[in-house]
């Protein structure tokens, strides 16, 4: 969408930036604080913003997204409509289908039910952030190899859930895969292949039991 250009953080000093936001705690910039986000939070805490658009900085796939957003804009909305991160999909906008699943500090969450403004300072990973230098992640590759997709609309969400699972539990059982993916819906019916893909990505040997009889 049409990003009415925010003041870029870029070359400004941190102090100048905080000052430009009108906080009285600009001196906090010189205190020993870890990140800009934490500083922002401390400096802006209890400062009421909105309801009109305000600067919101999101860290997505390691990069900073600087947007002007109303507080009521969700993280999903911010990614899909205020930037070009259309990988996460809107399937329901009600935290019931998982098509919008992203990782926030390594935990899968529904980006449709998280306000963008409170996702600041968190490490957000989307489907676009998985492949490294054009090389598919093991989970992405496994989804391809096991045909764990059909129309593909639920696919980014499932891949994020499986990716998060394997980070915490590198060798899950099929039941653990089901438990981890319980929050993702698919209408095309890819579930059997998704379970296979998760197991294959974990290094387990997976074979199809489909038999072809030549009549």
């Amino acid at each position, binding site marked *: 969408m049409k990003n009415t250009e925010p003041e870029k953080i870029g070359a400004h000093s941190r102090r100048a930036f905080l000052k430009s936001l009108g906080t009285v705690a600009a001196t906090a910039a010189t205190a020993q604080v870890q990140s800009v986000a934490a500083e922002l939070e401390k400096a802006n805490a209890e400062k009421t913003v909105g309801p009109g658009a305000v600067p919101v900085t999101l860290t997505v796939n390691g990069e900073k997204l600087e947007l002007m957003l109303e507080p009521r804009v969700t993280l999903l909305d911010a990614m899909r409509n205020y930037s070009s991160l259309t990988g996460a999909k809107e399937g329901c906008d009600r935290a019931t289908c998982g098509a919008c699943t992203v990782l926030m500090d390594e935990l899968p969450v529904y980006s449709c039910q998280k306000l963008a403004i409170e996702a600041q300072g968190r490490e957000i990973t989307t489907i*676009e952030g998985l492949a490294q230098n054009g090389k598919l992640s093991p989970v992405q590759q496994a989804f391809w190899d096991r045909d764990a997709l059909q129309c593909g609309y639920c696919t980014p969400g499932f891949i994020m859930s499986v990716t998060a699972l394997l980070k915490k539990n590198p060798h899950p059982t099929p039941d653990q895969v089901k438990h981890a993916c319980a929050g993702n819906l698919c209408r095309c019916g890819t579930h059997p292949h998704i379970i296979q893909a998760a197991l294959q990505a974990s290094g387990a040997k997976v074979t199809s039991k489909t038999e072809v009889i030549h009549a």
Partner: protein
Amino acid sequence: MPSWPEKTKYISKSTLRIDAPEKVTGRAHYASDIQAAGWLYGMILRSKWPAATISAINLEKTLQVPGIKAAITAKDLPQTVRFYGEEIAAVCGATKQACLDALRAIEVTAHALPFAVREDDAKKDDAPQVWDGKPNVSVSARGSREQGAVDQAFPECAAVIEGFYTTPVQLHNPMETHGNTVSWTDDGLTAWASTQAISASRDGFAGPLKLDHSQVRVITNFMGGGFGSKLNGSVEGVLAARLSREAKAPVRLMLTRFDEALAVGNRPSSFQKIKIGALADGTLHAFELDNYGTPGISGGDVELPQPYIYKVPNSRVKQAHVAVNAGASRAFRAPPHPPASYAMESAMDDLAAKLGMDPLELRLKNDSNEVRQREYKIGAEKIGWKEKYQKPGSSPGVVKTGIGCAGAAWGGGGASKRTQGDAQINPDGSIEVRLGVQDIGTGTKTVIAVVAAEMLGLKPEQITVKVGDTNFPPGPGSGGSTTCASISPTVFDICANALQQLQTQSGIADARGNNWFAACKKLGVTPLVVHGQWQQGDPSRPLSSSPAYGVQFAEVAVDTETGLVTVKKIVAVHDCGLIIDTLTLESQINGGIIMGMGYALYEERVMDDLSGVVLNPNFETYKLSGIGDVPEIEITLLNMPERGVIGIGEPATIATAGAIANAVFNAIGARVYSLPITPARVLAALGKVPPFTAVKP
């Protein structure tokens, strides 16, 4: 005469889906992902009345909401609204938030009218009429027929059963909602559509907007499912185009999940009173059906092809439509076979129980279809029918296990004979095949690549496939399980033409495989563009045909204290002529089964009769099969190259509900007559729910 090669390198083997890389990386762009320069967000205001006359719509305040660029009414006034969710107005603006605020600023003057949203309410003599002057109930002539002498035949039967089997209205609920991103150019309108039929979509824009077809271009590179609900032009598309024209900017208008339950189609319900009788040896002798169902305010597919796959010499079938104030039905994966199969196959098992006969034996006795006979035998062995079958209800313990089966036929498969396509072959040997079809998740693009690779002696990765553009040669909508059987012979023809021309131009006798690049090089600087179209090929060994059959077996465990049904295993035995790609075929069958399981156990659109609203327009209470519900699925594929290519999308979903329902009956010895088979219904069938008596206040 042309026919498929007997020995194949790719056809009938497993080929990875060629558009998977885009889908797994998020690079695939759906209609809802298109970000045309300066695009605006669009939104629809829907009627909150199930029936009303709207006399005025005030858009003044709406247009004053910051960021709003246009606001229109959907129809001319006065507008007669006939269902909760009917389109009333639409807005577009810079943000979703602006549109939300704008919708709430629209002032609608409406006079509410009486309504009926339940079939049984609409059938009453004093029910409000959904359409003025038209009774809500209309007996279907084409759905009613009589054969033999039914009334004499029933007394001749050794066993007769009666049952009232019902199925609910089912919602398609594809993961991507309906919608388009539209943009006006000097040439006309471009629409990135979430559609199963780019040609029909184009027609749907051209007509209402008074454009020539050549002025409308529809593009669908990826779409997030349709299952029959996206086969036509759309109200929301035209609204988006009108908004876009007025706002002078592209508009993306996607429906919300809430909208999907209201206004974009559904599978009609069925209320089937069945009476069926057999002679002592199990031969079916008499059949009677009285069926009614609702397609909402209008629509088709209420008539059921009963007695489905069975031949009964004496039968009488009466069917009726019941109109209600709810969204119109649309074709939904194998219409109307799933409700027909479910009820018929349930009746067969009930009859088998009365006869004291194994229900599989009853089927083998009465289903003369050779293909299904083979499939039943294969499936029975795979599920362990002989070892596992026991009389209904004889499974011991609290959690009872049972098995059941059902058969299918899908005659609507086959091919669209007007399918065309072309290919551009470049001097460097690269080839791009273009067809005006769409890949709705079935693997259409992969099928094209496989056939082209086979015929040209190349690898599927070497074929660039382009579909989903009305600028390409026309093809059919993706419905009826016809796409694979339409495009395969077409690509066959394109390749045959390509080789012929290549061979002529290059002087190389056989330009396939190892000779391909040398032959292409001889093209010089000018690419070769060839056309092709669907052809039947050798009639004795055609390139495509129909129908397809299929049988499915289900094994379930039913907790007789909580009523929970767990499907442990589905064995599916399917035929679809010549298999093109076993991998994507397996995915299709999984999908059909899982959707059929949802129909059997979880899905039901619920209408509230007091307010007339859809009560479950969300995934919280409209329940889809989840990964935790999905059983082990074992698939056996019968490859029949001599029949040519046949479609599978719909055959795969027909028999599932019947098989599961029969397995539940086999487990607990009591029939749950209504879908979905919820824990509540299981407990009621087991006699565990005390009858309800209204408590006097």
